[in-house]
């Protein structure tokens, strides 16, 4: 009986996953092009940092310039790793899709059918991400190979495990953060401006724009206490050995607590939202 239930669950999940994947691949051309185009900004960003370091060098007249402990090499390595973190934690279109489904009444299907929306959409996202990595692995590998000179070798195995864990957590954290923003749609039918502000803050506070160590006090302490740093900065910092090994597991623990908190918040918002919900859109 028990194994049968498990079996049912697994086949159910597999089906959801498969369908989301198929849907993702329905427009192959657009999907592939969209995925590859995301690599273009990398090149411009690397040139931008190169120009910045060039000008620092010119004015300070030292042979190797540093920016709060980052050399040009470190900066490029950080940038590439933060891109990798974002590849896990960014959820393109999730919040706006959830808000749209609430506004247009599509969310009804999760209410009428015996399925759990939060879990269902999570599985869908896993499928989307896997489709994305399938296409993006080769260009990612190529970029890292070309830029191997910027890295100073592989970190030890324990750090590598922590790094992988931090990527998986980044995915989950990113999912639940975006989901919560989307669920605000129950209260404000139009969330696009809110979403814009959130994306800007996220870009900045996650360390996607520049390493968070560059921030002066008291801002640095502030972002330390926010969950956004786990989306891009933290995985990169782990890989680059900027997180002390004794601190690594503690930090991952804190991240896990954030994750639990956000899962609880998403559940609460969904339950409260449904109470408010009056079935807009016919």
């Amino acid at each position, binding site marked *: 009986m028990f194994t049968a239930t498990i079996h049912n669950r697994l086949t159910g999940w597999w089906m959801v996953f498969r*369908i989301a994947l198929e849907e993702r691949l329905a427009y192959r051309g657009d999907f592939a092009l969209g995925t590859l185009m995301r690599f273009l900004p990398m090149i411009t960003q690397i040139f931008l940092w190169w120009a910045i370091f060039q000008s620092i060098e010119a004015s300070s007249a030292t042979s190797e310039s540093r920016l709060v402990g980052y050399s040009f090499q470190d900066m490029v390595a950080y940038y590439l790793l933060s891109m990798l973190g974002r590849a896990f934690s960014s959820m393109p279109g999730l919040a706006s899709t959830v808000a749209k489904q609430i506004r247009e009444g*599509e969310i009804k299907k999760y209410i*009428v*059918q*015996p399925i759990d929306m939060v879990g269902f959409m999570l599985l869908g996202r896993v499928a989307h991400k896997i489709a994305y990595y399938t296409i993006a692995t080769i260009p990612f590998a190529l970029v890292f190979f070309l830029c191997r000179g910027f890295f100073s070798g592989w970190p030890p195995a324990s750090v590598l495990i922590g790094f992988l864990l931090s990527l998986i957590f980044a995915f989950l954290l990113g999912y639940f953060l975006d989901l919560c923003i989307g669920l605000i749609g129950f209260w404000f039918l139009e969330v696009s401006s809110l979403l814009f502000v959130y994306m800007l803050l996220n870009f900045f506070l996650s360390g996607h724009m520049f390493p968070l160590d560059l921030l002066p006090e008291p801002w640095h302490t502030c972002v330390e206490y926010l969950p956004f740093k786990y989306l891009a900065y933290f995985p990169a910092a782990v890989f680059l050995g900027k997180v002390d090994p004794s601190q690594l597991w503690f930090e991952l623990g804190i991240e896990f607590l954030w994750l639990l908190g956000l899962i609880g918040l998403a559940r609460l918002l969904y339950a409260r939202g449904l109470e408010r*919900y009056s079935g807009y859109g016919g």
Partner: protein
Amino acid sequence: MDHYNPATMPIIEIEQLTKSYRVYQKQEGLMAAIRGLWHREYRDVHAVKSIDLCVEQGEFVAFLGPNGAGKTTTLKLLSGVIYPTSGSARVMGHVPWKRDNDYRRRFALVMGQKNQLWWDLPAQESFRLHQQIYQIDAQQFRNTLDELSDLLSVGQLLGRPVRELSLGERMKMELIAALLHSPDVLFLDEPTIGLDVVAQHNIQQFLKYYQEQRKITILLTSHYMKDIAALCQRVVVITDGAIKFDGSLERIVDDFSGFRVLKLQLAEGQSAEGLERFADVESVELPKVTLRCARSEVTTMLARILEHYAVEDISVEDPPLEEVIAQLYRDSESADVVSTRPHEVHD
């Protein structure tokens, strides 16, 4: 859900069900819009006002009413999509808005204007997903799908992306998706909206056949009198959030129309002049004349007309249904005419 006994209890029981919305009252003009930024006036909209209704297992009931009368709101309440403001409802012993999985596996909701299928995938894939969601046994799934796609003759289309299907074909797929788990109760919200006559007819025929075979309970809202005349033994007229009539379609005419339509074919050379002395003249297209008169006066009126005019043929008819219902909508907006059928017990 604890004490539901299908033998003795109605499958759907609604008592004093009420749903009100609070909506922001927008004022016209820019100044008003600016004022609205800090001071907002709200207005309560009473979508459903203290409705009582019982439906027995196996009934096919139509909800009829103008736009915004509360039909869809009632279906949403019964399918648990929204919470009521007050009152109670039980479907197969379940309180719908508690959304027990036990309840959700036993009913289905189809909305003519909403798409539940995955747009970019073949309908078959959505069906397989439903198989998982509703945990339908593989053999049973196969049989049901074959039967339904056969009845609706869409077997060839199962592998085509939903976006490439016509509106009628898509509606058929929606129905299949809703019926795969063999629900005991089906809510249909305008299932034939926007369809051409042939597609409408196909769907009517299918619903009729399916309901007769399976004896499931169906609640349907529609604007098409043809849907209702073809399918439902029982009609519930809702206007302005309240039930104004509950009974058979024929009884609407008896109850709400006090007049009859007389159609005369006059003999050659007979003029229609002076007929207005006896009854309201609706149209004159010699030799045909259409009159209206109060039902109680039909016989005396006819006798007098026959006395004075040479008439070749006579027919006495009920006024057209659409007209009676339009009249009913209008009347019920002013007065509170309620006609409820006595509760019949089905065996």
